[in-house]
């Protein structure tokens, strides 16, 4: 059973739809016992960092997320929240990964970064296969996470190279939306489901 964390994220339905297409059983919950009983947990995310952190805190999920050893997949804002800090409304985040999520610099290109951009695989991981190097995934975001030892794939936009996929211990996360990234996204979700 996969648990989809229920904290008001905008893409919850879409992630659920993607799990349905893969035939995966899932539940939408913010109940700590139900989350603890799940085989794996997904932290979706569309919205603003500050209100997302407030919603997690209200539900007692901040400490739970920091402590859990269950396989955890963060999507989009669900990746950004893993870091120490976000420049978006100067928000303290979960602090599971070091560093600050920053706004795209003014590089004369449109922001948000919206559309299909290419992945660069930078370190091996079970969640990505080699054919995904150079493959396109669907991104929509205004803030981006730094590249570090946890980075498994990068993307480049607005003069900035940022983390597109990260992995550390029980955590994997994508800045792009696997639920909206056609076959590439489905493969990554399937890899998470069979972990």
């Amino acid at each position, binding site marked *: 059973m996969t648990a989809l964390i229920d904290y008001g994220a*905008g*893409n919850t*339905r*879409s992630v659920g*739809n*993607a799990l*349905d*297409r893969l035939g995966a059983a899932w539940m939408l919950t913010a109940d700590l016992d139900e989350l603890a009983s799940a085989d794996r947990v997904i932290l979706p995310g*569309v*919205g*603003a960092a500050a209100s997302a952190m407030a919603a997690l805190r209200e539900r007692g999920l901040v400490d739970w997320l920091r402590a859990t050893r269950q396989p955890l997949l963060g999507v989009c804002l669900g990746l950004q929240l893993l870091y120490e800090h976000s420049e978006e409304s100067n928000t303290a985040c979960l602090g599971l990964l070091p560093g600050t999520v920053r706004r795209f610099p003014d590089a004369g290109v*449109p*922001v*948000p*970064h*919206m*559309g*299909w*951009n*290419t992945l660069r695989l930078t370190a091996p991981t079970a969640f990505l296969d080699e054919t995904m190097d150079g493959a*396109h995934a*669907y991104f*929509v*975001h*205004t803030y981006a996470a730094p590249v570090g030892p946890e980075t498994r794939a990068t993307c*480049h*936009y607005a003069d900035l190279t940022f983390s597109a996929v990260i992995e550390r211990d029980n955590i994997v996360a994508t800045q792009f*939306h696997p*639920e*909206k*990234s*056609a*076959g590439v*996204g*489905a493969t990554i979700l399937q890899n998470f489901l069979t972990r």
Partner: protein
Amino acid sequence: MLARRIIPCLDVCDGRTVKGVNFVGLRDAGDPVELAVRYAAEGADELVFLDITATVEKRQTVTDLALRVGRALDIPFTVGGGIGSVEDAASVLGAGADKVAVNSSAVARPVLIRELAEAFGSQAVVLSVDAKSNGDGWTVMTHGGRTDTGRDALDWIAEAQDAGAGEVLLTSVDADGTQTGFDTALLAAARPRVRVPLIASGGAGAPGHFAEVFAANLADAALAASLFHYGTLAIPDLKAILAAQSIPVRPC
């Protein structure tokens, strides 16, 4: 590298596609979901559904459409047409749509843009503008291009952006339906004033029209309807032609 997006647009009324669709092998050419899946499989980067249902059941029919599309589709999609409130948008976005497009309702009540951006984030709010040339500029048309508001289109785009619109879908009323090419004069005038992604719309009739817009960086994405629906141009062929001209596209 960020790919230029190709976006088919489907007009929908009471849950059925409006314009005739000339696709070989469709079981039901009037089913927007089947058509959407077909476009996604062909390599469409996103889809836009423009709902023109005019009945009191409108919100329910458009929400049902978003639900059915969301279950079937693994690429992003936008729903527009009659979104006039946060509640309208919540219904459609909650059903699985990625973005809502607002047009006449935002012109009538500009604060709608800010309300939507605050509720759902700018990335979910597309400003759809129908612009018509008046000789020395462009004015905003509403109600499907029938009403001339007299407002300057570029000023309206700037205002809506400041209010929180996260993308601009700019349709040339003059070029729409002509299949003689996108309105490059309008796009060139608008582009410097748009900080968010810009979608060119109206006038697409051949691959060269897309290439012209992208090569000159006049838009991040291009939208077309009839050209794709009638089978005049298939998306894989269009993308192959663009790729051959070194325009970044997502391979089909």
